[in-house]
């Protein structure tokens, strides 16, 4: 039954996101929420391969960064319209996913994680040595005129990121309940057994990596418009990859709800800590929250939420 209602939930959510800025005008909310939503979308995308397939990608910032640089280069340096630049960014990032997939997805577990780290260094290094991409000096983003719809760029960016998050969640929900998700979970639990049973393991991993890469690239493609200036160290920051992993994990890895909850909770704590704890201790608060969630909620916050709302926990936890 639940499944039939899914498209409706999707539409209602999208409509809610699109209408919210009409009624609520505090710009700080949109600036802070944008980053939280960015982590929601990244975590949901990461979970496709990392959660269902069990292949840990520590190169989230590489996919994100490829998206950011492609879109910035296209609409900034070449003057191509933003919408096309965003789709192109997703496409290039997906292609990057194909490359990573073919070169590294035959590696088991942790070796894949290290390969994605190396790939991040490689991409960062290429940008650092490419003057057309601003090298270490960075690219200053030429801002488009205020959009007609909301009259305000940040509200439009919020709506766009909200939409990307909702669509990612929808995709993730669909995958979890489709043959792709079941195949991925089977190979996560025992790859050899899955292969013997005829699950096309490599193809499934590749699909997951490419789709995940596409979504991360699309998320990254909006970031230049948010930040106004991009340079390789903040874009290819290992911290982004760490955050996405931790958020997914404390939310509940391998479930479609987990990354949403984790990113909303930890992302909000990060935003709140940076404006309440006005010293370097704000990072300690975030770290302490990580430890508390990690230690006291095995299987993630998702289980707790299910309990709180009286639902039986159905997912399996790691």
């Amino acid at each position: 039954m639940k499944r039939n209602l899914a498209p409706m939930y999707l539409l209602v959510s999208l409509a809610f996101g699109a209408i919210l800025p009409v009624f609520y005008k505090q710009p700080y909310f949109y600036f802070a929420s944008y980053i939280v939503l960015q982590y929601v979308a990244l975590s949901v995308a990461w979970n496709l391969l990392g959660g269902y397939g069990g292949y840990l990608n520590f190169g989230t910032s590489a996919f994100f960064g490829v998206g950011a640089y492609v879109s910035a280069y296209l609409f900034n340096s070449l003057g191509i319209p933003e919408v096309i630049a965003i789709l192109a960014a997703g496409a290039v990032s997906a292609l990057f996913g194909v490359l990573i997939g073919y070169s590294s997805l035959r590696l088991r577990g942790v070796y894949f994680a290290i390969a994605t780290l190396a790939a991040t260094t490689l991409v960062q290094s290429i940008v650092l040595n490419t003057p057309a991409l601003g090298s270490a000096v960075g690219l200053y983003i030429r801002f488009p005129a205020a959009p007609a719809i909301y009259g305000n760029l940040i509200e439009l960016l919020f709506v766009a990121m909200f939409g990307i998050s909702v669509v990612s969640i929808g995709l993730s929900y669909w995958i979890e309940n489709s043959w792709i998700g079941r195949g991925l979970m089977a190979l996560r639990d025992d790859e050899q057994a899955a292969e013997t049973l005829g699950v096309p393991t490599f193809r499934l991993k590749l699909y997951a990596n490419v789709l995940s890469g596409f979504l991360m690239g699309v998320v990254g493609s909006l970031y230049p418009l948010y930040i106004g200036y991009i340079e390789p160290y903040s874009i290819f920051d290992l911290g982004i990859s760490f955050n996405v992993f931790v958020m997914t994990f404390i939310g509940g890895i391998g479930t479609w709800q987990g990354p949403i909850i984790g990113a909303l909770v930890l992302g909000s704590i990060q935003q709140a800590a940076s404006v309440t704890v006005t010293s370097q201790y704000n990072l300690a608060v975030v770290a302490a929250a990580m430890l508390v969630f990690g230690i006291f909620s095995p299987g993630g916050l998702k289980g707790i939420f299910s309990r709180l709302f009286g639902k039986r926990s159905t997912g399996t936890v790691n």
Partner: protein
Amino acid sequence: MALDLLLESIATGLLIGGFYAALSVGLTISFGLIDIANVAHPAFIILGAYFALALSQTFGIDPIIAGLLLVAPFYVIGNALYLFYSNTFERRGESSLAGLVLFFGLLILLEVGMATQFGVGLKALYSAYGSVAVSFGPLLLPLRFVYSFVAGVAAVIALELFLSRTFRGRAIRAVAQDAQAVSLMGAKPETIRLIAMGVSIATAGLAGGLVLAVGPISPYQDRLLIGRVFAVVVLGGSGSVVGALLGGIVLGISENIATIYLGAGWSLAVSAVILLLVLALRPSGILRR
């Protein structure tokens, strides 16, 4: 490019490799042998560097000697860390994944702690050999890296002997392969892991002394080391201490040769490509036991 320049870059690369080995050898034990992905390992190294600085300044001793003095206390810290980890995660039968969250949190807490205790700025120690290079035939070798190479190689040899010749060492290797068999032999796997984690963090104490001997330190410096130490571990073969030395040397030499022929700006790209190639050709690293 002149031949002597190439020879010299290989020789210094080799020395840097010994330094990298010292930074990574503890991680290859925790990560490769007892399945604890301690991403906070570099943060412990920097902590060791700050303690080494305090020791050096108080007693006027060499930072590498100070690092050696830290081995015992850091062994205890490693034990404590393992007890905390095993009580919160391992005993509940959770995978090492859950531990990653713990170590990410710990990494940040260590950084903030060091920043508040020792200051956010850079600290450095004046050392008489800091900028001395010694002649070795036609080559000029930076003395501080000669020392850290010797220390790194000595640590690798000592650990290899420990792991292959002593009962406890063999038990650590055995635990990596079959924990049940170890308990049948009459050793408790928990105790063996406790020792292994102690040894792992103890090397971070020594490595801290080396980091201080080599250059200035700052509380967030661990972030610069994370990628490199994991690369060294995986390159050499996770769990192999000799592999850590080999991995370190491969990275050190390739970075230096890249410096000579492509420019140092490409050195990280070259070492990333080498890592990816090794993973593609020999997925478990150069040496795999």
